[in-house]
């Protein structure tokens, strides 16, 4: 067959622009039959944009997507398994596999052939190893089994094995043992002739599974290498873009004051006893992969998420029972990661958002809001933080992402907080706004705020922080500062790939 040596999928010169951001910049990619291609990169590197273009969620601005081996008899299909599998948790595997595809009134109303359905579902999933009970709600199955249902569902319509399967962060919810089950299933598919694209930010898994590794950084393809030419140090170099040894290091130029935030043994849903001490004027970063506890920490400190602590002191006073209103009263401020949902009231104007947390200083003698005073405050802050367009009366949701975040910053920094908690402060923000936000954080620290930055972006942490705690599985795995605080170290510690780590050695032994 002539189609055999042509790739199943060929992407050439893919470009996608968002306002102020080139999410994909001339990315080309080929996937052959029987090949597992890993696409790796940071958050914001363009991985998910690529998937969304292939899925048809976004329209590409330029570039081609071709299926060179697709013929009339053997059309190449493309299936995507999203991280959220989209299964209905209350329904069982048979129903989720969509086996009851009955059309027309007569078929729809006839009694369902339960036995036949069950046999077919079992057959579909047993292609991926040990079959399991297909009649229980999928919510009660193990996460790996759910992933297999997701894959089996995608494969159900395949008339031939040479199709493309894209797995977007499939291991996010899985334990190590389950990852192995999933990987076996994926390898079987590839052996049958499927072309697999495996999207992940877990470098150890990528090294274990992939035949070829494609690295994206800031929307550009920076590496496209066979697995045997890559070790994990090189992979980290590709991902971060920083050569080991010549990296930027953490900040040492700030002067610190007294201890402002002093927490011992913070634990909650994903945190398992974290100590955190921040001085006035100090910027402390919190790093870690998704699920490490990094994303839960600031909300727990602020009191909007339930958490307990052995000791919790703010500005020298014990603060055992936390809630947002009381935290604000004590001089804390929290910029949450999801600004539309938590950071602001989307239907309010910029002015109304800015004054909301502290309205006591824009009131008049008759308990009312002093409109003139409020407007002056909003106008001044909108100008100070360079919100564009500088219109305090514009509705929040009509601003672009970067300017929305500037408004959220203005809202909190107006009160000169003593503790500033930041969660993903520059997510979905263009380069210009990013710089402005960094300067705002620097200024807040210079004025004596104790700053905590939780971020998935290693580069950002190195740029901003004096010291970074790396969380892994809910505990502090490492604490880096000064010379040690580099992007490479952060990534290595975050994934648990620092010297002598078993997972990687094990996988290399297998290859």
């Amino acid at each position, binding site marked *: 067959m002539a189609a055999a040596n042509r790739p199943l999928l060929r992407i050439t010169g893919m470009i996608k622009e968002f*306002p102020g951001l080139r999410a994909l910049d001339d990315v080309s990619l080929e996937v052959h039959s029987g090949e597992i291609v890993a696409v790796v990169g940071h958050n914001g590197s363009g991985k998910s944009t690529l998937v969304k273009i292939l899925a048809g969620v976004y329209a590409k601005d330029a570039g081609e997507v071709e299926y060179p081996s697709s013929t009339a008899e053997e059309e190449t299909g493309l299936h995507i398994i999203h991280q959220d599998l989209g299964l209905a948790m209350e329904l069982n595997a048979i129903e989720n596999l969509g086996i009851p595809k009955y059309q027309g009134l007569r078929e729809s109303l006839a009694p369902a052939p339960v036995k036949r359905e069950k046999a077919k579902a079992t057959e579909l999933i047993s292609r991926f190893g040990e079959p399991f009970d297909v009649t229980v709600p999928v919510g009660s199955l193990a996460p790996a089994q759910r992933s297999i249902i997701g894959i089996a569902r995608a494969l159900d319509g395949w008339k031939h094995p040479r199709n493309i399967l894209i797995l977007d962060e499939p291991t996010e919810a899985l334990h190590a043992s389950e990852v192995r089950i999933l990987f076996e299933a994926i390898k079987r598919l590839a052996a049958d002739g499927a072309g697999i694209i495996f999207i992940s930010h877990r470098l150890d898994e990528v090294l274990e599974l992939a035949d070829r590794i494609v690295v994206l950084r800031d929307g550009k393809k920076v590496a496209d290498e066979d697995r045997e030419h890559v070790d994990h140090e090189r992979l980290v170099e590709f991902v971060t873009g920083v050569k080991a040894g010549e990296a930027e290091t953490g900040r040492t130029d700030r002067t610190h004051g007294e201890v402002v935030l002093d927490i011992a043994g913070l634990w909650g849903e994903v945190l398992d006893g974290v100590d955190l001490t921040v001085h006035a004027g100090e910027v402390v970063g919190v790093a870690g992969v998704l699920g490490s506890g990094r994303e839960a920490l600031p909300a727990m400190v602020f009191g*909007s998420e339930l958490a307990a602590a052995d000791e919790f002191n703010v500005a020298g006073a014990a603060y055992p029972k936390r809630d947002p*209103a009381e935290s604000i009263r004590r001089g804390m401020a929290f910029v949450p990661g999801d600004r539309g949902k938590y950071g602001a009231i989307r*239907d309010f104007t910029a002015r109304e958002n800015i004054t*909301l947390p502290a*309205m006591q200083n824009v009131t008049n003698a008759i308990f009312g809001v002093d409109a003139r005073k409020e407007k002056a405050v909003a106008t001044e802050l909108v100008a100070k933080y360079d919100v564009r367009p500088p219109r305090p009366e514009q509705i929040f949701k009509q601003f672009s992402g970067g300017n929305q975040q500037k408004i959220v910053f203005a809202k909190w920094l107006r009160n000169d907080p003593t503790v500033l908690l930041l969660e993903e402060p520059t997510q979905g923000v263009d380069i210009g706004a990013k710089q402005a936000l960094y300067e705002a954080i620097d200024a807040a620290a210079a004025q004596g705020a104790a700053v905590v930055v939780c971020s998935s972006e290693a580069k950002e942490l190195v740029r901003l922080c004096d010291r970074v705690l790396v969380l892994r599985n809910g505990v502090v795995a490492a604490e880096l500062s000064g010379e040690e605080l580099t992007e490479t170290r952060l990534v290595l510690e975050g994934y648990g790939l620092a010297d002598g780590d078993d997972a990687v050695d094990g996988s290399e032994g297998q290859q």
Partner: protein
Amino acid sequence: MKTTEAIATATEDTKATPRSAGGWRRILSFRNISALYIFVAIFVLFSIITPKTFLSPGTWVLLLDEQTITVLAALAVLIPLNVAVFNLAIGAEVGFAVILVAVLQVNLQLPWPLAVVLALACGALIGTISGLIITRLKIDSFIATLGMSSLLTAGLVLMSGQRQVLGLGAGFRDFATGGIPLGGTFKLTWPFIIMIVVALVLWYVMEKTPLGRRMYAAGFNPDGARLSGVKVARLQIGSLVAGGIVAALAGTLLASRINAGDPTVGPNLLLPALTAVFLGSTQFKGGRFNVWGTVVSVYVLAVGVKGLQLLGATDWVENAFNGVALLGAVALSRWERTSKRTAAIKRATTFGRRARTELAEQQAAADPTSAPAELRKPDQE
């Protein structure tokens, strides 16, 4: 996330002329004050058709006074709705107060001022209980107030035995009909004055104070408001308490007006009250529930119904008119808002596609070999 950003920037240019420039045009636009235009249209229409009855002062005096109870009931719905809490118990709350204030006077022989105070206190208590059910037991306000409504109806039937409670105190009876004479047949009745005072207070609190700002914030986005230090649960309970007091006030005035504890009058207020609040949200404040929009809506609806009744329409016309007006007004404002947005989304998403098809067409025109695939197939194979 990213798509919304693209759309946000797309709308940015077309939207939001500063208030100073096109301010008056915006304020007087149909979108902003459609109810007032409808009012004028109705007024002109019925003035021409039935000038004698429609334009007589008696009609208008009656109308102003008659609707005060509906306005109060609507305001009682509005307060909690501002913090995203539905109060479906409003009819039962008013009805309960009607019976309670009568039973206290007739059966227990309490002096009427005391009965009124107790009825208002009971309204506050009902609000507190609803609030605790919603915030502590985390039951959706829709369901919680539906349950409360059922319970209150049961209590109402229990107290009244499905019969009118007659024989109210003389002072109580005269209160609703008294007022400040303005000369001729015109008179500002006490219920009307009370209603205006309540509306003024609520307007000031909601629009002019930090408390009102926090209420709106909690109504738009409870999670976001909480993270900005707004005590959402406390506001929800408080708004139900205030709403309960206003509802009890409406019931008390209603009992005074009809001079009896009538078990059937309260529950009928639910639909007109909800209608007015939602219709009112399309007025003046572009989608925010607000006091004057609610007040005006009640009267616009009432004038329309009155005109139709004067033409000889029968009982069904009130509900029919209210229904049409509500659906029409809300659909109109929704359509106006979404059409702008839909256009922006279309611009943002089809731009690339259109550019490409145009490009393809140009290429096809310039280069005959790249004609559509069907035509090429034969000579390729």
